[in-house]
């Protein structure tokens, strides 16, 4: 199994802990502003004040998924409120859209003050890479909106037109109570409807009026009926109230209720006046986004906002600035839901490549590669048996003496050497010194198993490693001597390997446990700066020909004081 690729160490996290950290990060206002804006945008000549509110709750949960080996796709729900104070339809003066956007973040490394750090980089995000996965609240401009816009426009127009003693009153319900006579026209209010004629959309308006012509002794309620073409683009709706349709059937007409011989003449004279009055409404232009245009606009805005940002994950500043983490490089294993962080590039002559999934069902696992294991083993053997593998080392004990010529300790897979579990395979050659007899040459090999005893209480999580020598019987004192020679060195090797792993992946090594071979540890960085505290616990170890794996579990809690903290300390705010 490829544990660490071309690196020495690897930390793998399951997608669930990554999600948990992400949710906590989203709660950090300083890191991820929850409220963006208001900022101004001008559409169709109208200025919109736009505010964005980030969401992550039960009803609208943020999420992430591993898209490919280098990209995390973030699913971010937010509310976008657009305020248009002068919207023709007051109901559209504030529109709130509920959006869920998918944004890809690249798992990338970049140098900071000479040291690489790993993080999520959005700087390459283009609009096309952003997806609008959900969009709700986008208003569709219908007859009601036109009606409301006309009601609104009515308030700003003249309602009484005169020519000599003649008078034309425009009504819209009771919106102008100063008009005399009061409104008794049909329709009582301005009415609008959308109709299609010859492939063109029109708004049909019925405008209640009263006409007074004293010289003809004529007064009548009535209505002006007219059609105006509606022009829609993806972003704008325009109605030119001055543009009379060419079709005769859609010509502006004046209808009067009271009969009179002069009625037709009055209508003929009044119609041009009515057209002029309608032209007073001008060209009504309103931002009106269809869904396609709205989605594109959102993609553009999101990309523009995000593509100047990147967020560090593994950074020298996360720990001791004097001890920066070495070349952290991240890979995602989408099929398995695993985030792998490699550290200490061992071989720069090959392109970095993803490790295999060694996480299994754990939340967290650390791995150290075979090459690093071999280095530490070689160093330990050299300390305990200097000269071995290079001429020989004299081993002298109370029980006897020997010249150890070669000694090899290598991690081996389960299934090799007829052993059902992974082990350290020890082999060597020695010359055993026997009194009064020629010294025989002995070659030996056999397995050492690494067993783990976990002490886990509400306040402690300690992993104890117990090297066990296969097939050795303690009744055999000669073997006991061998165990005394090999087991302590295996113990030191394991401590060196585990502690080096912890150290190199940014964990913390505290002082020694009093009187014992061990120490308090933080297996991985215990903080995600400003976001979360991580409590990792190594629970096991597995040995294979490719190195060692230390599976563990992870508790994640919000950094700072939580409700539970205050409750636990009896410091909840009192009324």
């Amino acid at each position: 199994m490829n544990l660490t690729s071309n690196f020495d160490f690897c930390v793998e996290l399951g997608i669930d802990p990554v999600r948990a950290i992400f949710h906590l990060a989203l709660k950090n206002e300083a890191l991820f502003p929850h409220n963006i804006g208001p900022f101004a945008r001008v559409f169709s000549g109208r200025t919109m004040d736009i505010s964005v509110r980030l969401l992550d709750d039960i009803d609208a949960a943020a999420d992430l998924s591993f898209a490919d080996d280098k990209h995390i796709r973030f699913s971010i729900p937010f509310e976008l409120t657009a305020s248009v104070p002068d919207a023709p339809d007051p109901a559209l003066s504030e529109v709130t859209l509920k959006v869920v956007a998918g944004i890809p973040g690249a798992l990338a490394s970049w140098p900071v003050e000479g040291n690489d750090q790993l993080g999520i980089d959005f700087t390459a995000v283009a609009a096309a890479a952003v997806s609008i996965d959900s969009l709700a609240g986008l208003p569709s401009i219908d007859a009601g909106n036109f009606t409301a816009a006309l009601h609104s426009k009515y308030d700003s127009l003249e309602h009484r037109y005169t020519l000599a003693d003649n008078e034309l009153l425009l009504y819209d319900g009771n919106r102008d109570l100063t008009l005399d006579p009061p409104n008794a026209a049909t329709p009582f209010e301005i009415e609008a409807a959308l109709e299609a004629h010859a492939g063109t959309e029109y708004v049909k308006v019925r405008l209640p009026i009263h006409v007074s012509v004293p010289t003809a002794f004529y007064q009548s309620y009535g209505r002006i009926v007219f059609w105006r073409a509606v022009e829609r683009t993806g972003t704008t709706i325009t109605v030119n109230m001055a543009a009379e349709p060419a079709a005769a059937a859609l010509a502006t007409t004046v209808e009067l209720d009271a009969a009179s011989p002069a009625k037709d003449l009055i209508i003929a004279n009044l119609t041009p006046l009515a057209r002029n009055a309608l032209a007073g409404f001008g060209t009504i232009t309103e931002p009106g986004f269809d869904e396609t245009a709205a989605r594109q606009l959102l993609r553009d805005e999101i990309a523009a906002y995000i593509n100047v940002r990147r967020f560090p994950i593994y950074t020298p500043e996360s720990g001791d600035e004097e001890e920066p983490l070495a070349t952290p490089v991240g890979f995602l294993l989408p099929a398995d839901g695993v985030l792998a962080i490699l550290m200490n590039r061992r071989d720069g002559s090959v392109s970095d490549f993803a490790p295999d999934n060694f996480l299994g069902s754990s939340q967290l696992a650390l791995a150290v590669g075979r090459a690093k294991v071999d280095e530490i083993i070689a160093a330990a053997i050299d300390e305990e048996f200097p000269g071995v593998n290079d001429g020989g080392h004299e081993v002298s004990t109370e029980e006897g003496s020997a010249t150890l010529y070669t000694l090899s300790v290598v991690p081996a897979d389960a299934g090799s050497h007829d052993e059902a579990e992974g082990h350290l395979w020890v082999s060597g050659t020695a010359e055993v010194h026997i009194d009064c007899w020629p010294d025989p040459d002995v070659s030996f090999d056999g397995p050492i198993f690494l067993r783990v005893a976990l002490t886990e209480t509400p306040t402690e999580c300690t992993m104890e490693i117990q090297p066990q020598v296969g097939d050795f019987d303690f009744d055999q004192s000669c073997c006991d001597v061998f165990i005394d020679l090999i087991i302590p060195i295996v113990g030191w090797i394991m401590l060196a390997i585990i502690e080096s792993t912890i150290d190199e992946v940014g964990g913390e090594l505290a002082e020694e446990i009093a009187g014992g071979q061990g120490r308090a540890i933080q297996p991985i960085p215990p903080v995600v700066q400003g976001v979360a505290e991580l409590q990792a616990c190594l629970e096991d170890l597995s040995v294979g020909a490719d190195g060692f794996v230390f599976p563990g579990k992870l508790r994640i809690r919000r950094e700072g004081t939580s409700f539970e903290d205050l409750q636990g300390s009896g410091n909840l705010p009192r009324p």
Partner: protein
Amino acid sequence: MARSPRSSPTKTAALGSRPYQSFAPRAARVTGRAPPPIELPQGNAPLTIATRRDLAASQKEIAARINADPRFAVMVLVNPVLAFKDLGIELSAEVQHHLMHRTQHPVELRKRRDALEQALREALGEEPRPNDRAWLAATVFERLKLAPVDSAGIEPAYLPPLNTALIARLAALRPKPKPRYRGARRASVKAGIRVAAWQPAARRLDLDAELPKLPALAQAPRELALDALYFYKDAHPLARQLLELGIIQRQGFPFHTPDAYRKIRAGERRNAFRNWIRSVRFPVAES
């Protein structure tokens, strides 16, 4: 220098009601490897070794017979007398004793063992058997009249398997402690890593460590293990000599009984030599 965790008698929680800790094989583990039976060497002409001179003269022939089958050669480590017999080599009683005695300890240790055995034999009037629990209890409580003490739950002091200088060199392989993350943490669980303490072994009992004062035991036990004798080492000179002899015996090369030898050769009984030793080859002396 930091003291070893086992450098002075310590209370242990795990002993429970057991009056004395035995040296059970806590670390022994059966592996998946099951060595096949070893065929007896064939075709060796009978060779009789009557004296030590014969033994010296026949070294080349003996080495050749052992080296002829490296797999069988391992049996020489299990019991050289019985292995020689399987190789067609008959040893006189004198040579058998010589072989077993001389190969069991280095010279200095063998001399010390001989001296202790002689002194104890003279003092007790019988062959000392410190690794025989019943014999040891009878000798300590009935012959030497020592008052029994309650050492339940007390672990003797042991010398560490590695010396202090080596431990320091090995410890240097470990990364230094690094308080990387400053600031208060609310984490309630403290994580740790450690390696199991090394095995106590009777042959590493620390003869010079100071003993704790132990309460008297109302009734003398009927058996006394070597690690329990440890708590009487300062109560009587012979007790100390018995303990030292017992330790030396534990340090000896263990030769198996004929029955055990047969079972080990037949693959019916597991043995470290069969599983761990691939070959044994004796140098062929120039004639």
